[in-house]
């Protein structure tokens, strides 16, 4: 029993400490050197929603995510998070396809990178350790990233994204480089932390079945515009091979394949 209490402490502490944020995009455009990548996107994303963005390569899905993560600024239109059009960058955390850990920092220090403006170093370390425990890597704090497997590195990257308790978590094909089994485990982990914490999740993926497995809503981007907006009301946790899910997946794939 004591073991249970001990492991439950970080979870209880982290659960629900921040709710997600609502996002509104109005007429968002982005062009790079005359080439228009996003052509006027209007979108409302409810607080705490899990949204998957799918589309062919070059449809602008990664660009959209980078705008939402504050890495780029739109060339037209506006983005508002909980009604605020400025200063929301700190409430968003981005996770990349590669773990992008600092190889010269111990694992726990890598997680602390996620806490840019936090209290004293002991408190930072405590929060980083709690985040590592949540992704199932307790006890690995003092190792170097180079000893971890690909999936474990992505877990550290997830802990780094979660440690500051973001209102929005943006994931750019976070599982694209993982093997099939590790992918399934990571999908379950991402779903679990999302259920625990209630942030708004945006995941860009080229894998439609992954999108159907995770998301409340799938946006299909084509030529810089939202071509399809599908709500998915299937109960969680979703089983692989569910016929309803397969039907939705089929519809989206069909739209993707017609040009």
């Amino acid at each position, binding site marked *: 029993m004591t073991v249970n209490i001990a492991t439950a402490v970080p979870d209880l502490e982290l659960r629900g400490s921040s709710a997600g944020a609502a996002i509104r995009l109005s007429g968002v455009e982005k062009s790079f050197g005359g080439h228009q990548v996003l052509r006027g996107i209007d979108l409302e994303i409810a607080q705490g929603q899990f949204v998957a963005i799918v589309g062919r390569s070059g449809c602008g899905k990664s660009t959209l995510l980078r705008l939402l993560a504050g*890495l780029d600024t739109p060339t037209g239109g506006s983005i508002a998070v909980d009604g605020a059009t400025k200063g929301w*960058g700190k409430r968003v*955390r981005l996770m990349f396809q590669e773990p992008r850990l*600092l190889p*010269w920092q111990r694992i726990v220090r890598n997680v602390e990178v996620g806490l840019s403006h936090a209290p004293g170093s002991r408190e930072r370390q405590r929060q980083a350790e709690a985040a590592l425990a949540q992704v199932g890597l307790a006890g690995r704090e003092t190792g*170097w*990233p180079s000893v971890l497997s690909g999936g474990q590195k992505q877990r550290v990257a997830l802990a780094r994204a979660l440690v500051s308790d973001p209102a929005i978590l943006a994931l750019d094909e976070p599982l694209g480089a993982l093997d099939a089994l590790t992918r399934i485990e990571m999908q379950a982990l991402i779903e679990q932390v999302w259920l625990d914490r209630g942030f708004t999740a945006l995941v860009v993926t080229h894998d439609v079945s992954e999108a159907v497995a995770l998301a409340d809503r799938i946006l299909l981007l084509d030529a810089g515009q939202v071509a399809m907006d599908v709500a998915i009301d299937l109960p969680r946790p979703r089983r692989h091979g569910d016929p309803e899910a397969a039907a939705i997946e089929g519809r989206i794939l069909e739209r993707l394949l017609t040009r």
Partner: protein
Amino acid sequence: MKRVLPWLFPAALLVVWQAGVSAGWIDSQTLPAPSAVGEAFLNLARSGELWNDIAVSSARAAAGFAVGGGIGFALGMLNGLSSLSEKLTDTTLQMLRNIPHLALIPLVILWFGIGEEAKLFLVALGVFFPIYVNTLHGVRSVDPHLLEMARAYGMSRRAVFWQVVFPGALPSIFVGLRYGLGIMWLTLIVAETISASSGIGFMAMNAREFLMVDVVIVSILIYAALGKLADSIARLLERLCLRWNPTYAEV
């Protein structure tokens, strides 16, 4: 046994050398026996002359290295981080790099005479380029993905430098450091041999005038030992600083 094997050949060479001189096959005026060299070393060490010369040479090496390496490091960082600074200076530096610094010796003697400044200048110049080039390369080769991550996580410019750029460039900087140390001793040997009134090079040239071949050999060996020592310290530092890199771990 495995530890002994690499030393077998050098030891045999020493024995043959000693035996060759004792048997009269090798003229002791051309190449004195190892025992005679050892004796010369002990005599020099006892008189204190040797330590004084080592100290003088090491101080010259260190000063030249600090000046040349410091400027090379600073410019390498600056040009790696600022494209304006790079556009302004890199082409010039790359052109100057093609001049062998030892070719400047006649000019340096004209400018500075044969004083300390001449040796400092030559060593600094020789050390500058490998450190500059490798620091610049190190900053350039920092993973852009990590820089983007740092930006996405709102790191300040200072934090980006100390947490991403500098550690990322460090392996390359160490390559420059070790290369620069080699050039440092080489330059100093040449500079001290041409003109000096103290230091190991002076000791060797002085001994040459009096045909003391054993002392000449002692100074050559001292140069070799100092070079090796500097490289070992650099390697130790490298292993300490790059522990995170599996290539250097647990060596």
